[in-house]
């Protein structure tokens, strides 16, 4: 195991577990940002520079801001913090998650198809990605553009304040 990956993986996992277990929502959001940054570094470590930077822009930038604003807008000041933050069926949830991990790990460790060495790192330039996006992937690109527009309009309409009595 390369030491770089070991450090990044430990940091990312620790912050993911922290994000899921902190009691205060803002602490969870900050931990989540650390997780996303760690994942971006792992993408860079895997030689996918463009994806790493997109991860920083979209997740560390946009999604984190969205989450922080959502926390700000939905703050319960009336509720005391002693109320339980875990669902009633938390033990079942943990068991299900553990079972899922066990199944995945058994499948990964038992697979012979994964025994392969890394090939020579390919030169992935932004120019190549742009050319592919404009030629082979142009229809998916347009569909995603349409989806993002629809999602943006939908989000605005859903979150718009309901007028009383209308």
């Amino acid at each position, binding site marked *: 195991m*390369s030491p770089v*990956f070991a450090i990044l*993986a430990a940091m*990312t*996992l620790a912050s*993911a577990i922290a*994000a*899921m277990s902190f009691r205060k929502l803002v602490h*969870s*959001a900050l931990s*989540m940002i650390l997780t996303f940054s760690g*994942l971006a570094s792992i993408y860079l470590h*895997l030689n*996918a520079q463009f*994806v790493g930077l*997109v*991860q920083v822009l*979209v997740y560390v930038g*946009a*999604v984190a801001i*969205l*989450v922080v604003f*959502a926390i700000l*807008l*939905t703050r319960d000041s009336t509720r005391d913090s002693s109320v339980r*933050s*875990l*669902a*009633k*069926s*938390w033990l079942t*949830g*943990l068991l*299900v*998650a*553990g079972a*899922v*991990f066990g199944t995945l*790990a058994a499948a*990964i*460790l038992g697979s012979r198809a*994964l*025994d*392969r060495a890394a*090939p020579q790192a*390919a030169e*992935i330039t932004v120019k*190549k*990605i742009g050319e592919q996006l404009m030629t082979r992937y142009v229809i998916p690109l347009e569909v*995603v553009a349409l*989806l*993002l527009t629809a*999602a943006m309009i*939908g*989000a*605005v309409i*859903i*979150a718009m*304040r*309901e007028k009383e009595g209308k």
Partner: protein
Amino acid sequence: MNPLHQYLLFSALLFSVGLAGALTRRNAILVLIGVELMLNAANLNFIAFWRYSPNPEALNGVMFVIFSIAIAAAEAAVGLALIISIYRHYKTTNVDEVNELKG
């Protein structure tokens, strides 16, 4: 255990942490964060398989992850808008208390 195993195991662990969070926490925003963690674990799988594929010049994995990130961003925006809308209506973001469709 070769590097590809490590990446896949790490991503499985991240997925399980996200799943555990989404299943055990009561706040809707934390459930959404758990879902985002699961999506990110899937993206990491794509990148790891792309890096260890015999033909990384094909860019398939990278393209898939770029589209997946775009869709995840749209999902987060709509999800948080729904949470804000639910909060206006029920004055709570606790998923256990939001238990009727017609309010």
